[in-house]
């Protein structure tokens, strides 16, 4: 009974594969059928809206009203208006924060990779802020920084009187730093987990061998961990930089973009919603996309040429080509075997 069922299944399978493997067209058909839904979703929810946004950026329009075609005017406005393009300066604070955040994450991850006691609880605690939604984080810190509230009370315990505490959100020398600190608090744990994941994949024998050779923790970090997680560091750096260019939640929730804390996104939100200049806001979004793409390419080139040595994924072009050729051959061979 079961035997015949298996043989039937096997027959069906071979019939199926002969049908499907019959020719290139059939294979394409299968690929297209399976790809159709994901591609449709991708097109409907990503590319079509994006193209619409590009179209909007050439119009002077509101949400509900079609508006008129204005050519490049919105783009010229983005670059010429000081309140728009100048707001990118605020992002520098967030980039600084991103560097601090990566350093902290790297530090904590390396502490934990060497079997610390209670490391899983510690890990969970560090990761927890990332799970809180950004708006809630904003409200937490709104009260944290409010004059005479949490932070000032803590400082009070150390003997600093309330009058000497700065107004964290009002003082324009420190308010951006205060806001950046909230996003560092939120994302450090997540970065740490990413680093930790990469570090875990390093072969334990390497550490043993290194410690047998008399390498200390710092040397292990420098010569084993750092080279093997370079890719993930670069990835995190790219994510943090594009994240800092598009920082939105802390200034929007905590300060509403006032007192010089308005980031590019906050301004964009205001232009799109309060002033209903949807065309201009779309142009801003596209300019920001361009800036982020440029930053990413720039960072990639930077890491490629400055830290060329010791990186695993710096394969020369010839090698990569050879590998591709081999892969192709293998695939073709595989197909033939199946056929």
């Amino acid at each position: 009974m079961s035997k015949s069922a298996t043989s039937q299944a096997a027959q069906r399978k071979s019939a199926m594969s002969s049908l499907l493997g019959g020719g290139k067209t059939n294979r394409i058909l299968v690929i297209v059928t399976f790809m159709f839904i994901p591609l449709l979703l991708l097109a409907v929810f990503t590319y079509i809206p994006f193209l619409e946004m590009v179209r909007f950026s050439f119009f002077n329009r509101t949400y509900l009203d079609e508006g008129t075609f204005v050519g490049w005017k919105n783009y010229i406005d983005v670059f010429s208006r000081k309140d728009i393009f100048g707001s990118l300066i605020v992002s520098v604070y967030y980039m600084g924060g991103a560097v601090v955040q990566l350093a902290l994450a790297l530090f904590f991850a390396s502490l934990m990779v060497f079997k610390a006691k209670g490391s899983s609880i510690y890990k969970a605690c560090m990761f927890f802020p990332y799970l809180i939604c950004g708006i809630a984080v904003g409200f937490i810190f709104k009260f944290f920084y409010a004059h005479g509230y949490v932070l000032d009370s803590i400082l009070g315990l150390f003997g600093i009187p309330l009058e000497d505490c700065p107004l964290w959100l009002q003082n324009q020398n420190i308010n951006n730093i205060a806001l950046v600190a909230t996003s560092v608090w939120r994302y450090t744990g997540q970065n740490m987990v990413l680093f930790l994941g990469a570090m875990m994949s390093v072969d334990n024998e390497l550490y043993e061998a290194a410690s047998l050779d008399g390498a200390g923790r710092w040397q292990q970090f420098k010569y084993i961990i750092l080279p093997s997680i370079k890719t993930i560091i670069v990835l995190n750096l790219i994510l943090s930089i594009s994240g800092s260019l598009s920082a939105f939640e802390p200034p929007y929730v905590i300060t509403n973009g006032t007192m010089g804390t308005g980031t590019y996104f906050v301004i964009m939100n205001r232009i799109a919603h309060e002033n209903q200049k949807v065309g201009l806001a779309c142009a801003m979004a596209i300019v920001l996309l361009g800036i982020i793409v440029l930053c990413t390419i720039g960072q990639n080139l930077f890491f490629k040429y400055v830290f060329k040595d010791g990186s695993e994924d710096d394969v020369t072009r010839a090698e990569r080509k050879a590998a591709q050729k081999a892969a192709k051959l293998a695939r073709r061979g595989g197909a033939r075997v199946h056929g």
Partner: protein
Amino acid sequence: MKKLISALLVLTMLLSLVALGEGEPAVPAINEITLGTDFQDVSAEIKILTNRTDIVDTVYKGYAEQFMELYPNIKVTYEGITDYEESLRLRLTTGDWGDICFIPTSVQKAQLGNYFIPVGSFDDLDPIYNFVSDKSYDGTVYGIANGGTADGVLYNKRIWAEAGITEVPSTPEEFLEDLQIIKDKTDAIPLYTNFAAGWTMGAWDAYIWVSATGDPDFHSNIVHMANPFSDRGDQTGPYAVYYTLYEAVKRGLIEDDPMSTDWESSKGRLNRGEIATMVLGSWAVAQMQDAGDTPEDVGYMPFPITVNGERFAGAGGNYAYGINKNASTDNQIASLLYVKWLVEESPMFADEQSIPALKDAPMPDVLADFQGVTLLANNAAPAGEEDLFDQVNNESEVGLNNDDYPDCMILEAALTGSQTLEDLMGEWNEKWSRAQDSLGVEVNQ
């Protein structure tokens, strides 16, 4: 007999409407129906959207129940929405959002007809209801305001009396001097700006119209004015309003750290007398009274500006009820009945102490301080210019009644001393004229 006649009347009306042509809705105007008698046979389930999440399940539900006793075949349900404006902006475009909503401010006048059914003609409804012009376009009315509010200043009567002030101030200078006295003589915060909430700063824009000029046409004329924000030299006009804010901040008459303000707790603090004054519309009065044990201390005075020896205060409609154009005819009629009942027969305006929707209904007690003050609503813009103000306002990004940020900038500039008020108002004038230029608006010198 009477019922039969009215039913016949309605029938002929409906028929004539149908005969009139395609696209004309078979729904009567709001002034043509008699509550309790007409349309007793209509059965429908209607959904009404509201921003008042605080009372949607208590007070509003009670209103719905009272109405359903009158019309048992109609079932009314409420849906409360936090972040009302934003959600509605998106939901309206789908067409399938319910039957009645508060028309969001982002719907410009010219677009009202795309989303809502007409409820009557302007000429018919203007003598009956307050604030009709707010939601009318091209002689047709699309929404009835849910009562209205007067623009003034909230204050704690006990604190002002303790400071020895017996007369309400009538000019910005007098007001600022009084605040100084309060600061010197009491422990209360003279003026609480609620800066961190944002919208509370945008509230200042409400005073630059009738309250500051005494001119109900100022709102429609400002689009044609050159430099409307300049100093008029006589403590009137928009400049005087923003001067009050700027100087109060500069003279240290506000809270210590505006960034740390909290709206919810500020209500109780005004009630208890920890805060002496707040500049907000009369809708806030009921909330302040409810927030503590001394509701009798909460007072409301007109904004301290006198124009040629006369006091004025702006009055304006609350959110207006609009009825979904895409709903079925039965639902539209049921919705119209409910809206009419709400604005004419429900106890809502007494409950909320606001100006009632009907022009001949009595005023609430809380506006007693407005004795001798002329209450005026902004007039509708002339035909053809209905959405010109919105256009100029949005294009200029001055954001009157719309964007809080420019008002926040005033406080910011005063606090840090980064800009004088003259400079700031100069910038607004410049933006305003640039918008007038780019829209090709005629400017009267």
